[in-house]
């Protein structure tokens, strides 16, 4: 009897049909169309301005295309209005964002918003954020970060700052001031007065300090600025010239180059104890060190092979391995916060490039070029790179201008970052929230 039962069961199982399987290999990668409705509010300015900032942030990422509000069929009057999904599907929106701004008795504004999947017909996210009214731009950036993260699965980079060197004046008396602004160019502030030249600002990952090189006292040295008090202190007067500083991922150490008697090596400086450790001891010029995000390795460039090439070593200076083998010279390597790429500057046949390679040196791609492009810096999510480009005013190369640019890692979307004057040496901050 058991045998009959088993036979019947087997017969039953095999009689159930296999479903039809189809493989879809590849996809398109257009910006995702989304709709952002005005945020309902008694404050008509904010109800318009906040969605505008969110839209500008998302569109600048080139991952989203915001559908013109003129095309909206349904007016989302209130936060609790349920979308008529067919109306939003009809205008091609994949996602819908709408919100509401209220003013609390405490003087703060409370911004609530919802993110909807128009085709799945379900809410993807909803949040309420509160802040002082004057911080409305920050709220807008955080909303954009939230949407970006929910729709891409990766952290955003909109609530961030960019430090850079603002340049003014003639070449023989060039003023170079340390400046900082939001990643969209708003809220510009100058951190140094321009009396002495500042260069290569670098944020501590915990955002408590900024290190930069300055010529105060006539000798280039490293300075640390407290990001809250703006107080500045020198890192110590060393016998040589110190430059190219970067923080370790835990913000406790600085790695930098120091030049003594014509040779430059890489050093590690512990900020609390002041202990200094020499990491390279080669007779060649070793410089531009940058930590991997896990803090275990350091990429740097060296001319020990005859030309400037990129090398990776352990964070204690051991196990040095060359990773770049292409034509030309490589410089200013910067490890991606995501850990998957190293950005660098390359010069080949008289042209400068910004490029990317994997940490093992494979997959080199050059994503931007120019008469002089330099100083790549990563957005905190490792998707965008800011750099600066110098362009000559005439064919003889006289009268250059310097501007900041952003490009995504695909290499297809480059845009200028507007600054009031010339700008160089950008440095992208971590997320501010």
């Amino acid at each position, binding site marked *: 009897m058991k045998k*009959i*039962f088993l036979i019947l069961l087997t017969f039953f199982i095999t009689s159930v049909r296999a479903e039809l399987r189809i493989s879809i290999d590849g996809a398109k990668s257009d910006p995702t169309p989304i709709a952002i409705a005005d945020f309902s509010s008694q404050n008509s300015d904010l109800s318009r301005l906040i969605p505008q900032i969110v839209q500008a942030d998302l569109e600048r990422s080139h991952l989203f295309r915001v559908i013109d509000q003129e095309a909206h069929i349904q007016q989302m009057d209130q936060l609790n209005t349920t979308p008529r999904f067919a109306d939003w599907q009809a205008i091609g929106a994949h996602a819908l964002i709408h919100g509401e701004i209220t003013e609390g008795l405490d003087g703060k504004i409370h911004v609530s918003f919802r993110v909807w999947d128009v085709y799945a017909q379900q809410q993807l996210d909803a949040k309420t954020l509160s802040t002082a009214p004057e911080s409305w731009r920050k709220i807008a950036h955080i909303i954009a970060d939230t949407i970006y993260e929910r729709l*891409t699965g990766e952290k955003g980079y909109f609530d961030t700052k960019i430090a850079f060197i603002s340049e003014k004046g003639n070449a023989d008396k060039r003023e170079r001031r340390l400046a900082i602004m939001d990643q969209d160019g708003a809220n510009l502030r100058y951190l140094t007065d321009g009396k002495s030249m500042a260069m290569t600002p670098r944020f501590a990952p915990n955002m408590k300090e900024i290190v930069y090189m300055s010529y105060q006292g006539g000798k280039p040295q490293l300075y640390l600025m407290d990001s809250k008090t703006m107080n500045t202190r020198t890192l110590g007067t060393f016998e040589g*010239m110190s430059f190219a500083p970067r923080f370790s991922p835990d913000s406790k150490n600085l790695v930098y180059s120091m030049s003594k008697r014509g040779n430059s090596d890489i050093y590690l400086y512990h900020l609390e104890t002041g202990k200094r450790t020499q990491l390279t001891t080669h007779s060649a010029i070793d410089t531009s060190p940058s930590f991997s995000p896990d803090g275990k390795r350091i990429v740097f460039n060296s001319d020990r092979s005859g030309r400037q090439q990129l090398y990776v070593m352990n964070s204690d200076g051991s196990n040095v391995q060359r990773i770049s083998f292409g034509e030309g010279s490589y410089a200013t390597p910067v490890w991606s916060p995501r850990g998957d790429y190293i950005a660098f500057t390359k010069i080949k046949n008289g042209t400068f490039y910004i490029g990317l390679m994997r940490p093992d040196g494979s997959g080199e791609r050059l994503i931007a070029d120019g008469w002089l492009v330099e100083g790549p810096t990563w957005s905190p999510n490792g998707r965008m790179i800011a750099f600066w480009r*110098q*362009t000559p005013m005439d064919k003889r190369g006289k009268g250059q201008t310097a501007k900041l640019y952003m490009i995504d890692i695909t*290499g297809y979307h480059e845009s200028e970052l507007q600054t009031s004057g010339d700008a160089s040496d950008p440095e992208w901050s971590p997320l501010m929230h």
Partner: protein
Amino acid sequence: MQRKALLLSLGLHTLVISLMFMDFHFTKEYTKAPPAILMVDLTKVKIASETNLPQKSISKKQSPKVEPKKEEPKPAPKADKPKPEVKPPEPKPEPKPAPAPKDAVAVQPPKEEKKKEPTKPAPTPKPKKPDYNLKSLLASVEKVRQDAPAPQSQQPTTEEALDNGTEGRMDKILTISHRDFIASKLRDCWNIDGGAQNIDEIVVEVKVWVNKDGSIRDAKVVNHMNFPAFRPLSESARRAVFICAQKGDESPFKILSEHYADHYNDWKELHLNFNPMNANVF
């Protein structure tokens, strides 16, 4: 005795239920003509070993070069190349370690001394034309400059899609041409973030319940992978099913209802494997 009766009853019930699910092909006489046979002139068609071809627009594009080519003509910047006397500085790692810097100007890059007219507006660089073709994702700038951007992939017409599959091998149920057609339509409906991390390791499996008229009853993601990008990619894959289903006569599911109505039981449940980077992107 009771146990025996119970097992017998259970067995017979199982038999009856299984018979309800069976399809006795040999008892049927097909009244409807089978799908029309495509006449293909083999002298004009290159036969590949597989006909699961990517779209024509995609297949034209070459994979990105790893190392840029030697000396290519660069459009605008070439004209602005610095003359010998104003050669751009070697890529300075950071400020150059001059042995004994006397003052600030001494360690300035040489380019500084040549600036005389800083007020003149800089020509804005030409923005590169975006190309969302995944085959050329992550291409090198030199390669991008060299190639004319590929036209945006168009929705293939039925004929075009059928042209892609010409091998003629018939599957049990679905012709390979129709399979290609459905896959290419869904590929066009699937919009993803091409720069997402680990995208080349992600596969999304979607189970789709299709009505007899080709409309979608439901779609559900049936696998999970532990990558941050998996959730948005799986949501976009599921969305692709619904977007495609709304395309009327261009819906990939319409072809099932039109050509395989008699085999509804075979396609009422579809298992779709979405592989974002499985088309030889790298």
